């Protein structure tokens, strides 16, 4: 490598370099650790803790740390807040994960078709996307729930329907950028079909920004679901972080912990995912490599 008298540092490319960059980012690793803990706690917590989130276990409005009651206190019906947070996390995380998957799949389909084929397909699909973008997202989700009725499946659908346009626009922009690149022209020259070029040649190169976007979508979906549940427009029999806050809303002035603690659970989860997203963004950024 020093044939020309110039030292060229080997640059790591591909996934391994990105993983190393990610692991070097302390904040991102912290986010990953906290998020893993939260997932573990919501999966195994309810059965280990063994207290029902729906049953009265102590007098109502016991503060956190009160000797008579559970660790995080009780709500207006004497239900255990900690049990609620453990159980509610399942609903919230499940809805967020499914929504993110749905949003990215649909956004990817629309965006890749529009960006790759261009012309009238692009115009048509982007016009269609715009319809969903000019309606306030929460209001649109409310209309969908109004239409389908509450229930975890319908809530997921409602949130997914409002969040996909962003993913579609991002995918389209990436496909527009990449389809003019040399390596895409090369694969076209050797006779690859459209589908192969779209999903084997372009898509892997479009993944970094899409992955970062996915982490954002998960956080937004968590907030969205919490918002809907807070308004009381979801299935009232399902415990979630948002619904705990919604039901205790009227008592917040005198029993702050009934809303503050479920909210803190949301913030911690959202923050950990946002840190992961930040780390991913930096890890995929070739400009920051080798620093």
């Amino acid at each position, binding site marked *: 490598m020093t044939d020309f008298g110039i030292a060229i540092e080997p640059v790591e490319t591909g996934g391994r370099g990105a993983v190393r960059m990610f692991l070097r980012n302390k904040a991102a690793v912290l986010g990953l650790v906290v998020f893993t803990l939260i997932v573990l706690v919501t999966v195994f917590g309810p059965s280990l803790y063994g207290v029902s989130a729906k049953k009265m276990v102590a007098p109502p409005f016991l503060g956190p740390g009160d000797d008579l009651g559970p660790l995080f206190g009780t709500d207006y019906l004497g239900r255990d807040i900690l049990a609620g947070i453990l159980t509610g996390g399942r609903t919230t995380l499940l809805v967020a994960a499914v929504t993110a998957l749905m949003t990215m799949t649909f956004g990817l389909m629309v965006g890749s078709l529009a960006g790759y084929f261009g012309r009238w397909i692009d115009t048509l699909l982007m016009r269609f996307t715009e319809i969903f973008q*000019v309606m306030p997202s929460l209001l649109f989700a409310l209309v969908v729930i109004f239409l389908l009725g509450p229930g975890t499946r319908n809530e997921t659908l409602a949130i997914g329907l409002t969040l996909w346009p962003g993913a579609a626009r991002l995918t389209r922009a990436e496909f527009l950028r990449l389809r003019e690149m040399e390596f895409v022209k090369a694969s076209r020259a050797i006779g690859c079909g459209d589908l192969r070029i779209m999903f084997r040649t372009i898509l892997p190169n479009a993944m970094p920004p899409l992955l970062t976007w996915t982490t954002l979508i998960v956080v937004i979906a968590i907030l969205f679901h919490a918002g809907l549940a807070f308004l009381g427009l979801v299935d009232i029999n399902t415990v979630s972080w948002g619904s705990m806050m919604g039901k205790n809303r009227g008592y917040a002035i005198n029993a702050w912990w009934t809303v503050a603690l479920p909210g803190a659970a949301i913030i911690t989860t959202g923050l950990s995912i946002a840190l992961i997203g930040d780390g991913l963004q930096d890890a995929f950024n070739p400009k920051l490599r080798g620093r």
Partner: protein
Amino acid sequence: MGLLLAVVVVVFFLIQLAPGDAAVYLGIEQGTGDPEFLAKIRSQYGLDRPLLVQLGAYIGQVAQLDLGQSTYFNQPVLGLILDRLFATVLLASTSLLFAVVVGVALGVFTARRPESPASHGVTIVSLLGFATPVFWSALMMIVVFAAGHPFNILPVSGIEDVRYDGNWFGEAVDLFQHLVLPAASLGFIYLAIYSRLARASMLEVLESDYIRTARAKGAHERVVVYKHALRNAVIPVVTSVGLQVANLLSGALLVEFVFGWPGIGRLAVNAIFHRDSPLLLGIMIFSAAMTIVANLLTDLTYRLIDPRIRVGGSR
């Protein structure tokens, strides 16, 4: 215009697909499920016509700025919305103004010293703002500022106090006091977004060639930052403000709900609880129209900031 028409069609069909109509709801309210009564109501409101005829009639109405009649309030929908428009616009614009001004100031200030503790502070606050549900910060403000609590200095609910009736100065001060907490809780979320965006964009601009040129020709540091760099650095912020208008209404909806702020968002939530589909439909169309207008205004703002951009023209 075509876009608005598409919104009307999509939302109209979505709402028509919903199980149960206004007649059923009114029936429940009157305590009857009598088919004859329901049929009478349906023919009175024209609900027994084919869907396409109803849609055509509705579009004709909307074109004449008539959004129909609310089934719950029994008043014209447009009037109900306009009555509450001021409250929502006041809340949204105050929060946005606060967020943009403070956010850009923080972003610019910290971009000049990227490794300082203040700069890291902005990053942390903006991440927090991104992950915090807007109704949570609103509720926490109520907990802190409510009567009987340490900072009992601001009202935590509603928009006005009756004791100031007729006294315009008192009314204005009262309105402002009621506005502070809702606007602060909504503004905090956007402050997080804009400070981060302004910081990132300022950092990028400060690295560019024309800034180096400006410095090389001996321009004062303050002139470089506030005249050359700031103008270019706020363009992404303006773009984002334009895109956020639709989302701002979503946030305002939750804040209005918590603070009992009599705006369009609370009207929408009530419309859902009362299964008042004409009202809900009207609010959707109205807010879509507002978003479209806001996007046009954003395009015009670009031209003010960046003379190279020509709206609608070729490059």
